[in-house]
């Protein structure tokens, strides 16, 4: 409020202690070690030395400890920024000869008055002016409201087209020519800041940004630092704020359902968990949560993603030009960073929805705020939905899930940060008391960052991830036949990355990774004591993956940058296992086994290895436009075995083995990127071509569950994909959003000796993910300070399908004969969703903040095809007989929902 400032000043001037001023504050420097003194003592020391005025309330400064060492010629303003970084105080410089300490919550834009030419901040000692041509400006971009750092904020100098993005703790570094510059500092959803600086020598700067409007508190805190090279292309980033602004089904923000609105990323199907990137299968996407791999990304079989939206800081997806530190999946890497906890105060937030609710608590654990935490949980009450259905099959049915996540962030001195993350989720479903499904994710990671010096950073990660799937088949009449089926995967891994920078012209990342896998393809056990079921287990698979990589970023000139990377991956399939040898002159079938090989425990069954070169080039055409090119090769050693067209939790993972070779992908991409209006609008066009070797498809009628010789049911295939992706995004202003369009094709072909291992007589056929046209339009409009309208429209081609072309009568029943595989295509999909959000309260001092979001999914109620299939229609005597084609829509009506989100 406008009256806060004068009131506070009057108050200060009446009661504050003061020291008479003699010097300019902006020219003052401090140096030396200040240990275990209060800020009050510090200002008295400085004030006495330099004869400047400080205005403050003593009790406020007494509570702030100073434990800092300042090197020679550290500007006083920089020193104060460092000291006050984690406090609730800020400061204001009056007429360059007085410093006023004020509470952060009581100020708005005191520290820098944006856009005023008179406010030029000197960085460095004026006595050193002219000693260097360039200087390193480092600093931090934080939320002016709560002091939280921004990751991904942009600090940009338009006159030289140089810029930096904030990383860990909101920090940035940029080397600039000395002199007066106007910096633009921006972060999505926040008001751009323009700050004039007089850069004299190396120095630091803290910049506060404020929200465009005062909606619900957005939590954006520091996650694991992620280095993105300047030549990187084929990358999409979506922030927590963007995820939460999209209208979604049942009002639950969802990272995966948001990311499919980006170009080149397609949904598998309505309410399906998986996503396809550039024509790749869902198992070709590596999803990382704070560095730990996620093997199942869904709750309720695809209704929700498994990650609590309040816990997410942001998500980056790499579709091409993959950095060499990533590997193991050929289509994409989705790198999700979780919030690490509010540094300033305890905060509670959550949401109440129709089907589920969520809550998150975060804050500092210690008074010095060096340890922060975040705890989150979600649960559902979807059981009651089943109870509403009048059908005996549902009388004993239930469906539920919950998940919990926790992060703990510890600052170990000035140079190290330790972050620990844990996640657990569980889904239960039982159908009519006969079939019981349960699956769970257990994920943990430890991230340790250490600055060895100003230019060398080490990053060490230890990860653990486990996915278990359980199924109990229960028979009402034959209890002795009840059995329990288990499949799962367990993975422990570690990787270490060393990043080094040599100024602005070269940087390098070097590292190694090791992962161990234990995969359970299937195990059957009896359910009860009277069971006649015998224990049966498809032999567990063990594997070890060891990789090393190097990534080099070069700035050859102001216009030309390049990234050259190389990854060397090794995959060892380990015993104990029995591998069967098949008659080479016949198709692989169980009755064609001619021999077997036994491999003892932990012996190497087969080693796969390969070099994976990665290369990216960026050529700047002018200040706003660039051309980029990339090539990547990736080896994938794990697959998901599934013959469903969407992701099912029953799909199980399978490592390469004696018979199944790794999937190898080569991708080349070319893109044109252009910014408009000072980066407020960004646009891009990319084309790509991808070649896939050693794909897996399935024989007709393949049996995948509890298959001891899975190699007899799979078919080796090759494939290729190509496409054009167009994208334009407006990130500023009351109306913002993006439009993306993709034209792409994804084809496959078998080339095997035997007819039963051939699909469509070895002709090229579209993969099930081949959807040529994909359009997404996302728009958010801030109607007023409290009302916000959002909408998105999606359109994509129907996916290929196999339809019956012929009928025939067979033993009194009508049967069908199918077309070639994927010969036909389902009808196109399009949908429009809309939501409107009302913020309850905009007063900053009010602790409880809530918002209501009303959304309608599928506004015009289109019956979008989920699948096209046939059903036998019942004849009069009750016997099913004639086949009819049907189209099934999962959400065939406009689906409204109301959600209440809150923070405290």
């Amino acid at each position, binding site marked *: 409020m406008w009256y806060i400032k004068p009131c506070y000043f009057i108050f200060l001037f009446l009661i504050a202690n003061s020291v008479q001023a003699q010097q300019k504050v902006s020219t003052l420097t401090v140096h030396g070690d200040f240990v275990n003194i209060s800020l009050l003592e510090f200002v008295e020391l400085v004030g006495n030395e330099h004869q400047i005025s400080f205005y403050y309330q003593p009790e406020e400064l007494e509570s702030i400890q100073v434990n800092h060492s300042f090197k020679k010629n550290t500007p006083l303003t920089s020193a104060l920024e460092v000291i006050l970084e984690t406090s609730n105080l800020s400061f204001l410089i009056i007429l360059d000869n007085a410093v006023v300490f004020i509470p952060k919550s009581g100020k708005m834009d005191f520290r820098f008055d944006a856009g005023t030419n008179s406010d030029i901040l000197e960085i460095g000692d004026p006595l050193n002016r002219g000693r260097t041509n360039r200087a390193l400006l480092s600093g931090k971009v934080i939320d002016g409201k709560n002091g939280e750092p921004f990751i991904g904020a942009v600090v940009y100098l338009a006159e030289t087209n140089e810029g930096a993005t904030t990383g860990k703790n909101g920090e940035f570094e940029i080397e600039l020519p000395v002199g007066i510059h106007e910096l633009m500092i921006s972060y999505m959803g926040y008001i751009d800041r323009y700050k004039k600086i007089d850069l004299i020598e190396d120095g630091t700067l803290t910049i506060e940004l404020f929200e465009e409007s005062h909606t619900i508190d957005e939590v954006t805190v520091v996650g694991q630092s992620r280095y993105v090279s300047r030549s990187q292309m084929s990358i999409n980033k979506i922030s927590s704020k963007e995820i939460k602004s999209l209208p979604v089904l049942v009002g639950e923000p969802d990272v995966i359902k948001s990311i499919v609105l980006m170009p080149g990323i397609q949904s598998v199907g309505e309410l399906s968990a998986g996503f396809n990137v550039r024509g790749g299968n869902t198992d070709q996407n590596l999803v990382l949560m704070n560095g730990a791999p996620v093997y199942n990304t869904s709750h309720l*079989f695809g209704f929700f993603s498994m990650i609590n939206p309040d816990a997410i800081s942001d998500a980056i997806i790499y579709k091409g030009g993959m950095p060499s530190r990533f590997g193991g999946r050929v289509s994409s890497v989705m790198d999700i960073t979780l919030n690490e906890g509010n540094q300033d105060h305890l905060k509670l937030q959550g949401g109440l929805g129709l089907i589920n609710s969520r809550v998150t608590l975060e804050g500092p654990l210690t008074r010095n705020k060096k340890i922060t935490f975040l705890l989150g949980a979600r649960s559902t009450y979807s059981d009651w939905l089943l109870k509403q259905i009048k*059908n005996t099959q549902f009388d004993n049915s239930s469906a539920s899930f919950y998940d919990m996540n926790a992060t703990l962030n510890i600052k170990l001195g000035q140079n190290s940060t330790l972050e620990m993350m844990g996640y657990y989720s569980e889904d239960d479903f039982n159908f009519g008391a006969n*079939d019981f499904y349960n699956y769970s994710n257990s994920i943990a990671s430890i991230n340790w960052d250490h600055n060895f010096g100003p230019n060398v950073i080490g990053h060490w990660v230890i990860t653990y991830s486990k996915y278990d799937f359980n199924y109990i088949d229960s028979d009402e*009449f034959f209890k002795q036949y009840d059995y329990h089926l288990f499949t799962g995967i367990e993975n422990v891994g570690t990787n270490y990355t060393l990043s080094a920078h040599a100024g602005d012209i070269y940087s390098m990342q070097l590292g190694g990774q090791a992962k161990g896998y234990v995969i359970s393809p299937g195990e059957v056990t009896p359910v009860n004591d009277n069971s006649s079921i015998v224990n049966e287990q498809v032999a567990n698979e063990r594997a070890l993956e060891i990789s090393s990589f190097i990534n080099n970023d070069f700035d050859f000139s102001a216009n030309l940058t390049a990234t050259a990377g190389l990854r060397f991956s090794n995959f060892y399939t380990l015993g104990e296992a029995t591998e069967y040898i098949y008659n080479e002159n016949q198709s692989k079938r169980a009755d064609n086994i001619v021999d077997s090989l036994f491999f003892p425990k932990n012996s190497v069954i087969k080693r796969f290895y390969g070099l994976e070169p990665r290369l990216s080039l960026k050529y700047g055409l002018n200040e706003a436009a660039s051309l980029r090119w990339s090539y990547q090769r990736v080896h994938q050693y794990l697959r998901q075995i599934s013959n469903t067209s969407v992701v099912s939790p029953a799909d199980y993972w399978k490592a390469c083995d004696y018979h199944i070779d790794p999937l190898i992908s080569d991708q080349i991409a070319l893109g044109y990127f252009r910014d408009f209006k000072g980066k407020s609008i960004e646009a891009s066009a990319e084309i790509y071509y991808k070649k896939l070797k050693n794909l897996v498809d399935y024989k007709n*009628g393949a049996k995948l569950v*509890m298959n001891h010789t899975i190699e007899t049911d799979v078919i080796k295939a090759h494939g290729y994909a190509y496409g054009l992706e167009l994208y334009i995004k407006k990130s500023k202003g009351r109306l913002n959003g993006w439009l993306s369009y993709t034209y792409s094709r994804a084809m496959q072909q078998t080339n095997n000796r035997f007819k039963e291992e051939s699909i469509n007589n070895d002709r090229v056929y579209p993969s099930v993910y081949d959807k040529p046209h994909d359009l997404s339009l996302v728009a958010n409009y801030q109607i007023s300070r409290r009302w916000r309208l959002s909408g998105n429209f999606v359109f994509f081609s129907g996916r290929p399908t*196999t339809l019956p072309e012929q*009928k025939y009568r067979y033993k009194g029943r009508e049967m069908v004969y199918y077309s070639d595989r994927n010969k036909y295509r389902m009808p196109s999909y399009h949908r429009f969703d809309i939501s409107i959000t009302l913020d309850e309260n905009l007063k900053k001092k009010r602790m409880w903040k809530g918002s209501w979001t009303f959304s309608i999914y599928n506004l015009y109620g289109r019956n979008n095809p989920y699948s096209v*299939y046939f059903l036998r229609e019942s004849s009069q005597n009750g016997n099913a007989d004639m086949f009819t084609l*049907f189209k099934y829509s999962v959400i065939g009506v406009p689906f409204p929902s109301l959600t209440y989100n809150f923070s405290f």
Partner: protein
Amino acid sequence: MRHQLAYIIIFLSFIACEEVYVARLDNSKPHLVIDATITNEPEQNIVNLYRSYDFYGDRIKNAANWVEGALVIIQDEFGNEVVAEETKKGNYWVNVSAKPGLKYRLIVTTNGETYESDYETLPDTPVFKSFRVIPDTIEEYVFYPTGEPVLQTDLVCRSLIDIPVKDNLPYHLFEVTLVLEYLILRPPPRPPVFLWKTFHDRNLFDVISLPPYNQDDWINGYTLCITRNKLEELISFDDRYRKNLKMVGWIVCVDHFGLTEKTFQHFEVLNEQMQATGKLFDPVYPQIESNIRCTSNPAKNVIGFFKLNSCKKRRFFVEKLVDRDTIVNYETQNYFNIPFSGELEQPNPPDFWLTP
């Protein structure tokens, strides 16, 4: 299991939508269908040859698309051949009594092309034991015209058997035909009217094998059939209003086949096709593979399967449920042919008639 997964999101059913879809299908050439069954019982042997028709084609019109004049041969592992006789259009009968343990194959020559099956081995003759009947209650929702669901219970008789599933005969197929017997009783001297009506189950093929991961030698308590007891729900609308109707019971005619593993898998794939729901988590549709190939033109597709099944016919009587504690049932050696339906007004019941 994957089929059951289809039900998982079924609670979406109140917001989901299913509608008839008319696809633009290409015109494709009809394929030859060979439906061949050879058994140890010559009267059960049959080789039917006909052609498939377009998915949207006229079923009635195409039902008579028989393939006449083909040369159909059954050849045993020693090279002995028996030529089939075309008893009517496209229906070929082979006078051979296959021997358990011996291998046989089918050779068909028509329109200048030759089709040959793999050799199959005839399994042992199947058996089952302990036919028994227990009362049971079935619950299901029926919908009133207003759309209101009402839970309805039905008292039925469940016929159970025990089946040996030993190493040499683990795969079984049952084809059960139920014949409803009922009477119109009239005061003397008018004779009663004997009425009967046949019910065929044309749903899934009733194939059974040892449940997976099981160590038993027997499948105990397998439901062979369920017989209902509410006569008014089983007979035609007109018959319901005839006076003095009395339900007698059911004749249960069982054709029990022993299958080879390949034939069993073939029926399982047929069942998968028939129970496909096409919804969430449905597997990609499997094309039904044949064990018959066109040897003269390998690119030519052929539909169907050569089934070499051992066979055993059995017949039982199950009384209408009167007393839950005593349901009269027995096995009979009376194998008279039974017309599909009919009524006879005569003092004595027809030859096939069974009584409690």
